[in-house]
């Protein structure tokens, strides 16, 4: 699904965010990306949805080489990759339904299909009854559920999450994690950068630890390994 070989990322300001990264993530895996702040977790995530290009090496996502992907075709890649952020990134002026439908509208999906799919995912995240509300009328956890609903509404093969529980209290975080597990059980690959020690140590999955731009640990059913 995701295959990085010899990936190095240098930013124009001279910072080397990643160097010599080799990693393969198979379809259906659930992977935590852990490591200190500034270690390169976010860059790793950004390479997958082609927010950044590698300086050298190859990044293959679902058979597409993002490094040589033409600008014009970036939208095609984005449609295969769902993305979830710490700050939700919902559009404040659109209601919940519209925020989720948005992801299907931009790919010019049939209106009947849009309606059906949006109601399905809103049901999955348990917020069907709040479809007409605005994001600001929802709690942080609920907003993150909506962001997750949007990320999966077009059935992507992989969902990338950058600190999805970073802004949420512990109870809400567990709810969000259960949601990610449900999505993963349906066959979707999950790649999640996180600082949440409790979650990583409880829901035991593959852990990739990045320090100073290098992968220092890659264990199936790993542990967080840092003091929180």
């Amino acid at each position, binding site marked *: 699904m995701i295959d990085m070989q010899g990936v190095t990322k240098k930013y124009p300001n001279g910072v080397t965010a990643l160097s010599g990264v080799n990693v393969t993530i198979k379809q259906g895996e659930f992977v935590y990306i852990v490591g200190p702040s500034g270690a390169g977790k976010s860059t790793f995530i950004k390479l997958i949805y082609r927010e950044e290009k590698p300086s050298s090496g190859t990044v293959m996502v679902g058979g597409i080489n993002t490094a040589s992907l033409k600008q014009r075709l970036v*939208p*095609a890649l984005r*449609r295969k990759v769902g993305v979830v952020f710490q700050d939700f*990134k919902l559009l404040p002026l659109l209601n919940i339904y519209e925020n989720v439908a*948005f*992801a299907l*509208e931009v790919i010019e999906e049939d209106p009947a299909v849009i309606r059906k799919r949006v109601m399905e995912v809103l049901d999955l995240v348990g917020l069907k009854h709040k479809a007409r509300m605005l994001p600001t009328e929802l709690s942080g956890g609920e907003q993150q559920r909506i962001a997750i609903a949007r990320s999966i509404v*077009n059935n992507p093969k992989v969902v990338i999450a950058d600190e999805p529980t970073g802004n949420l209290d512990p109870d809400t975080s567990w709810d969000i994690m259960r949601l990610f597990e449900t999505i993963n059980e349906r066959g979707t690959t999950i790649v999640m950068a996180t600082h949440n020690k409790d979650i990583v140590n409880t829901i035991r999955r593959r852990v990739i630890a990045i320090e100073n731009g290098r992968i220092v640990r890659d264990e199936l059913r790993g542990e967080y390994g840092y003091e929180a």
Partner: protein
Amino acid sequence: MNCGVSTDMKPRTLRRHFRESFKNLRRNGWMTFASVSAVTVTLMLTGIFLVIMLNLNKIGTDIENDVEVRVHVKLETTEAEKDQLKAQIENLPEVEGVEYSSKEQELQNLINDMGSDYTLFEQSNPLYDVFIVKTARPQDTPDAARKIEQFSQTEKAVYGEGKVENLFSFMKTARNIGMILVAGLLFTAMFLISNTIKITIFARRKEIEIMKLVGATNWFIRWPFLLEGLWIGLLGSIIPIAAIAVGYYYAEQEASERFASHFIDFIGYIPLIVPVTLLMLVIAVFIGIWGSFISVRRFLNV
């Protein structure tokens, strides 16, 4: 696997863009108001200035068109020779029309202008028979006069030497200054409007970012913004167009009455308002769309 992104737009998508552009105008109410106001103010200035410039240009052209060559015909010239001279003048490329005025007519005109004292000259008319020559382009008058002087039956060709050249160079300068001012005003208008739209789009860069994240193509993102620019331009043009349509109606009447005795003629209501309205609409639509286009481009980072 088909990983291409379709570039041709479905009718449904076009409808969606229209709907979206209207929704966005409403959702961003104050931003819309600011942009529309910017269009209104600058278009109003441009419109008023345009009306004044067009009228000044019309008056100047009228004065220029009054310039003519008066060809004094030698006294001993026969009728046949006069016909020949007329033909010679008409054959000049610059000349548009030639009219004959006998010395009796000339005297009559003089008497009408100057008073009955001049009837004294009826005993012995000192005037010449005259051909009054109009050139197609007023600027060619001096050239035509010089050529006509060469003809054997011409006593003299008079055209207000010196004064006419001064008038032409004055009009030329005035037109150039006017053009520069209009261009400057339009440039300022575009700059102001594109900046206003840039601010409104800056406030919505998050929207663009999210659209890109979920896989929208750049044109899909651009379309609603361009349509919004179009509506902003059109909305902004309503007040200036209406104000100038009403204002010129009264201004033209008032000015015509006041200047009628000076033989100054303003452009009629319909002949001015129709082209000015169309021009203002074109400008409004163009700056609206153009302002949106260059502003949204910055946030698409292509």
